[in-house]
């Protein structure tokens, strides 16, 4: 599998950027309620990582995982409708923003519980190994999640059973509002992961090509029976943790500005040149139209609240 072109990466990243801009507007106008976790500044990680996966590979992500969901190939219309709580959403409006599932694209869920998607992807990798179906599982989580005990339990078992898993840790330097050094006794995440007996690699998470390259290597290793890999993608969220956080009370404006200048979309646009603007405009338009369609979609029938508890 060849690396996608710069243009293709930019299209993916610009789609996520546009989606989040639209959702922010809806949230500010009160048309979208509840927590909205944005990934502005982190767009290169999902774009690079998902490009190294096949549509049938397994994926779990977090409440901040809209970019993974789109890059994995899930329908923009279905995702938007779910986020807006519409009957036409991926889960008919029942799951919502934090719980996006699309089994037809290997998406075993974004998750509202910090670290909770890690175990399920290891389980999916167990299926892959037992069925010899050739699939791998990738789970993405934050630097904060790596302190959760069950994340470590899952990493240990993935190494123990030599399962085809990619543990992709997006290190954006903060867990909600807490900086890394205030929540980790050892801030070297690679050491913590490699202690379980797996390769642990750090990568510039703001460069989709580099992310693609390391994930691709890990995917190949997993497919060939070589077991799990841990990847730490260094990145930065240039907006608040969620809609109620400006993101400025625990970080300096200089720090945020520096990362904004280094944002993956800026970097990639500079590399592409004048065509970049056109790609971004197209993504904006595509997403805007999809938002209009989703807003016009029907709400679920209240009676459906009682349906679907059991299979």
């Amino acid at each position: 599998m060849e690396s996608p072109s710069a243009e293709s990466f930019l299209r993916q990243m610009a789609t996520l950027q546009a989606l989040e801009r639209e959702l922010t507007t809806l949230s500010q106008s009160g048309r979208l309620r509840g927590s909205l976790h944005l990934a502005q500044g982190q767009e290169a990680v999902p774009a690079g990582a998902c490009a190294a996966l096949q549509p049938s590979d397994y994926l779990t992500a977090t409440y901040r995982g809209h970019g993974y969901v789109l890059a994995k190939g899930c329908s923009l219309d279905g995702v938007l409708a779910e986020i807006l709580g519409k009957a036409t959403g991926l889960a008919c409006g029942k799951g919502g923003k934090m719980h996006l599932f699309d089994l037809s694209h290997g998406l075993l869920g974004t998750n509202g519980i910090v670290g909770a998607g890690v175990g399920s992807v290891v389980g999916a990798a167990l299926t892959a190994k037992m069925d010899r179906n050739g699939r791998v599982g990738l789970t993405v989580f934050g630097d904060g999640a790596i302190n959760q005990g069950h994340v470590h339990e899952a990493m240990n078992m993935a190494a123990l059973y030599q399962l085809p898993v990619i543990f992709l840790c997006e290190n954006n330097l903060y867990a909600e509002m807490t900086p890394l050094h205030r929540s980790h006794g050892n801030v070297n995440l690679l050491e913590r992961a490699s202690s379980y007996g797996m390769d642990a690699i750090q990568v510039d998470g703001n460069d989709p090509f580099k992310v693609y390259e390391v994930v691709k290597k890990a995917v190949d290793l997993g497919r060939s029976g070589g077991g799990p890999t841990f990847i730490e993608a260094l990145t930065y969220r240039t907006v608040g943790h969620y809609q109620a956080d400006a993101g400025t009370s625990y970080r300096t404006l200089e720090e945020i500005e520096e990362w904004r200048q280094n944002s993956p979309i800026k970097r990639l646009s500079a590399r592409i040149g004048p065509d970049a603007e056109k790609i971004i405009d197209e993504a904006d338009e595509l997403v805007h139209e999809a938002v209009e369609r989703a807003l016009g979609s029907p709400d679920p029938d209240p009676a459906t609240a009682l349906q679907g508890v059991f299979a």
Partner: protein
Amino acid sequence: MIAATTELSFRDALRKALTEELERDDNVFVMGEDIGRYQGTFRVTEGMLTKFGERRIIDTPIVEPGFTGIAIGAAMTGLRPIVEMMTMSFSILALDQIMNHAAKIHYMTGGQATVPMVIRGPSGAAKQLSAQHSHSMEGWYAHCPGLKVVAPATAADAYGMFKASVRDDNPVIFVENPGVYTIKGQVPDDVNYLVPFGKAAILREGKDVSLIGYSRMTHVNLAAAEELAKDGIDCEVVDVRSLTPLDTETIYESVRKTHRAVVVYEDWKNGGYGGEIAARIGEDCFDDLDAPVVRCGGLNVPMPYARVLELECIPDVKDVIEKVRKIR
């Protein structure tokens, strides 16, 4: 003499109680996620770090079982921890520590050890937080012997019950529905104002039907009573406040007067704590009842996301009125 009072929101009353208890006893400290530097996602711990410093306002990693276990150990050895769960839904990760350890230690050690700690945080649905973040956990904890569970509805009770929680020598689960934080009320200007556990409050007297609830549902009951009064149905509103221990006497007295009861709770109707209250009334007040005791609880489904579906699931004034009309 009636003590002077000040009008405060539930949240401000809670913060005032927390501040005063930290000032009163140096063994009291607070642990939780983003409670110090960020001052709490629901702002209950606002200003605490500046006032009390890092020794007593401890930001933790995102490790609910870890910090709950640590708090238990600290409580067993002389400190009085207050643990903030960012939401009670996350306390599910710490269930083993809470139910298998905190709740049992005094009993299992033959009384050698006590666990004077408070676990507090928002419990219940709030603005489309959907299936994983909308749990009402109080019924789970009230089910477990060894935990005291309180769920105040008013600012004064938030103040007096929180102080009582901190001074209690047992693990106390202090439940705050996100919908009550901004509700205002008069709070006594008394640093030793304690609302004892195991005492329900009658917030509105009535003779026709008893509406029994706690936390935010008490406000739903008050609003329903207001509506029903227009139609000549006179409801008594009983605010349970304390689930464990439970003040059955006040509840029974009300039922003996009205002969009809509706128990209202946001938790799943099936197996929620309102079912326990209803069963007790049924067992002990059978001869006083003119109608079956009715439960008005949340729908038995994971909380759906879409607003129209979420609204279906949470008991509201309309639902309470409907239940009352069934028996009256």
